[in-house]
């Protein structure tokens, strides 16, 4: 097992290196003077030269690449040309906002997708099956930005049930002198017993997480449903039925194990889908996370920031996939035997 994990970590480092190199050369091949972001709208020639000197953009690309590698080995991602803040600081501040959003969205997708998939599997082609399948298809078919805007119009514009945008009201920090922790906002407010702040955060996260989770819900639901239908055609299921067990009992006590591997695969892939979805959802809901930051960085060709977010997204995606690989071994005894052997 240790050898397996070490191998995965080694390949992860290799992938990160390749992602970093490819992104570096692509972002440096874009036309445009990146320092124009730094110096403002009407700079002088001298200001441009000074800025180019400061960031080393006047050096040959290969020298810039070696500086980049040197800095990255010291975990220094440089300074964002657009925000003038350190890229690692920006990523640190925003990572937790995206983490909470993706985690909650994933949680909603998995809980509802798996449980409804299992629930309708013995009720194939019933009205309930059609309804849930319909919702799943709609979640997959609707463009995420459109869905987000429709949710805003309904839940904020029409009913005024949920807030329009942002991670929290923010004004609570102003009126009550409560210092808002921008990290794991929901978690810290929950454990510190700041219920007003926690509920405020919960209200704010509901619409973006619902938007983000609907597409993945469709995928997870369909996978859970179809793999459970497959499991139900297996001889062991029929044997349990012959012994007089109810289908739901068999599903929740035994058959679910047969679906864990395909569901894990879909979950890992969906995680990537969700990370991509944050680009749109965070922009629509002004969620101060990595997706929003990435969009603005790409639009302005802020390449220290582009490098930083690409590496971080790649790292997270790799970690998730390593976890999924480990879960395969845990779920499937046949694989466990191969790894240990």
């Amino acid at each position, binding site marked *: 097992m240790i050898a397996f994990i070490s191998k995965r970590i080694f390949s992860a480092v290799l992938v990160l290196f390749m992602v970093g190199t490819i992104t570096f050369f692509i972002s440096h091949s874009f*036309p*445009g*003077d*990146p320092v*124009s*972001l730094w*110096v*403002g*709208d*009407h*700079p*002088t*020639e*001298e*200001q441009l030269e*000074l800025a180019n000197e400061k960031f080393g953009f006047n050096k040959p690309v290969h020298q810039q690449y070696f500086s980049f590698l040197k800095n990255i080995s010291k975990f220094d991602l440089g300074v964002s040309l657009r*925000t*003038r*803040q350190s890229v690692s600081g920006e990523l640190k*501040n925003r990572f937790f906002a995206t983490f909470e959003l993706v985690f909650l969205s994933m949680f909603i997708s998995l*809980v*509802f997708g798996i*449980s*409804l998939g*299992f*629930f309708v599997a013995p009720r194939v082609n019933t009205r309930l099956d059609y309804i849930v399948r319909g919702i799943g298809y709609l979640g997959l078919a609707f463009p995420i930005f459109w869905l987000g*805007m429709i949710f*805003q*119009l309904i839940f*904020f*514009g029409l*009913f*005024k*049930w*949920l807030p*329009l*945008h*942002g*991670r929290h009201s*923010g*004004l609570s*920090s*102003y*009126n009550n002198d409560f210092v*808002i922790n*921008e990290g794991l906002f929901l978690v810290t407010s929950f454990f510190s017993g700041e219920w007003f702040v926690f509920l405020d955060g919960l*209200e704010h996260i509901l619409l973006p997480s619902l938007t983000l989770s609907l597409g993945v819900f469709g995928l997870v639901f369909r996978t859970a449903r179809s793999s459970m239908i497959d499991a139900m055609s297996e001889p062991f299921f029929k044997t349990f039925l012959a012994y007089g067990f109810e289908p739901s009992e068999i599903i*929740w*006590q035994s058959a*679910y194990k047969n679906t864990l591997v395909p569901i894990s695969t879909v979950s890992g892939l969906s995680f990537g889908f969700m990370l991509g979805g944050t680009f749109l959802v965070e*922009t*629509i*809901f*002004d969620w*101060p996370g990595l997706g*929003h930051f990435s969009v*603005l960085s790409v*639009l*302005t*060709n802020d390449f220290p920031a582009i490098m930083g977010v690409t590496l971080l997204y790649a790292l997270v995606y790799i970690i998730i996939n390593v976890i999924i690989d480990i879960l395969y071994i845990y779920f499937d005894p046949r694989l466990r035997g191969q790894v240990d052997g």
Partner: protein
Amino acid sequence: MALVERVGKITIKIDKIIFYAFLLLSIKSCTDNVRTDNSFIIATYDDVKDWDPATAFSLEVMPMSNIYEPLLWYDASVSPGRFVPGLATRYKKSFDGLTWDFFLREGVTFHDGEPFDSKVVKFVIERNKTMNGGASYIWSSVEQVLTKDPYRVTIKLSSPVPLDKIVSSQYGAWMYSPAIANLPFDSLQHGYGAGTGPYQFKNWIKNKHIILEKYDEYWGGWNRDDHFNSIIIKTVSESSTRLQMIENGLVDYALLIPVQLLDRLKKNPNVGISYIPSWVNHFYLLNTKKFPTSNLWVRRSIAASMDRKTISDYIYRGAGVESKGLIPHNIPLFISPDSLISFDLIKAKKYLQKSQIKPDSESINISYVSTSEEYRLTSYLLMDNLRKVGLGLNLNPGLWTMNWDKARKLESSPNIISMAWWPTLPSPSDWFFGLYRTEENPLFNLSHYSNSKIDSLIELAWENESLSPEISKNIYKDIQDILIRDCVVIPVVDINVQSVYNNSIVGLKNNPAYSTLFIYNLGRKQ
């Protein structure tokens, strides 16, 4: 196994949970969105990035104009514009325009308690010059700052430039506390402000909001009942979200709502929309060094194909009026040039014949900012008109930074490039210095134009602005006439800035010299 069973039960109860959640939200919605604060809330599209008043050169003007004050303000809301006392109550200049005395307001303190006096003015000017960032170049003619008296400062210049316009600039002329020199660099990174203005910096949450709070010791006093206690500037990058915020009364002012979404707001009795004249204009620079626009008659043919009226009426609608000259018509020292090349496709064809370029044999390219719908539609209209004339037009949309970088190098430069310009100072000189002065390595002279006569006229006009403004005015007209004759630029529209506000706000006044709102002057109808 017990856990799995519980999951099953949770699913069954889910409908009840959803029901209670919505019930709770319905009750809560009755109490939401009722504004009980006394804050003025603005929804803007991007965050500030530089908290140093010496170098800030962009959207920072919104918070900074409420935190800081300059020595003089320029009031362009009246015609003709006038200087209004800021931290200087009066000023005088020597006969030769090289020595300026400013008499400072007494009893003024910065938000950090430091007193304001002549030493502060000296500190600010010298520090700004040393910083060499943002609009620090405005102080380049300052040779010496003398502080013999605490409330009188004497500034000696190397050339007779209009110092009253420089000290009233919206960038780089704010007076700030000398305590900034002792601050660690980090403090500026996390938001900072210590000026003498009516509002003081309270906090900044990056990409979320800036909060400014009333400064009780403000020298101007708080005499009205309806002053706002605080200002909240929210960063909301998505325009449809800003639209919903103003629509639902969550904010008092929203910036940059797309024109196509405004129709929805027009029906809302709580929201006011107006277009106010600005000092921004949109125009197209023609490359004078690159074939075929290196040919004057080709340039004239393009200029005669630009249908300014249709563009202002149907593309910009209320957001722009047809240009009358190369600079906005409402800027000080503007006189209309003799004539602009008018839209006439028959003339355009004749010009092309004179160029000796066969119709339909050549094509030119235009580079425009891809995020602007107005530039895109204008380029399409021009393409259509040029096709009738016999010139092909290739469209090259792109981000401004990319377009600019390509346009600066002759080999990659386009024949036509879209431009927007606004001044740092209340003077036309900004356009001419920036866009048409000879440059070895073009910075903004993207038409690659070089004319020694224009170079000397620009200097002359600038130096006469304070001593003989009438002479200056006529020189600016002459410069425009030469540039039109040489067909270096096609002016299109003078921009009207959109103002979308809550109708309960009173006191909104337009001063094109500053791209901001002065919240001290505003109030809310009771």
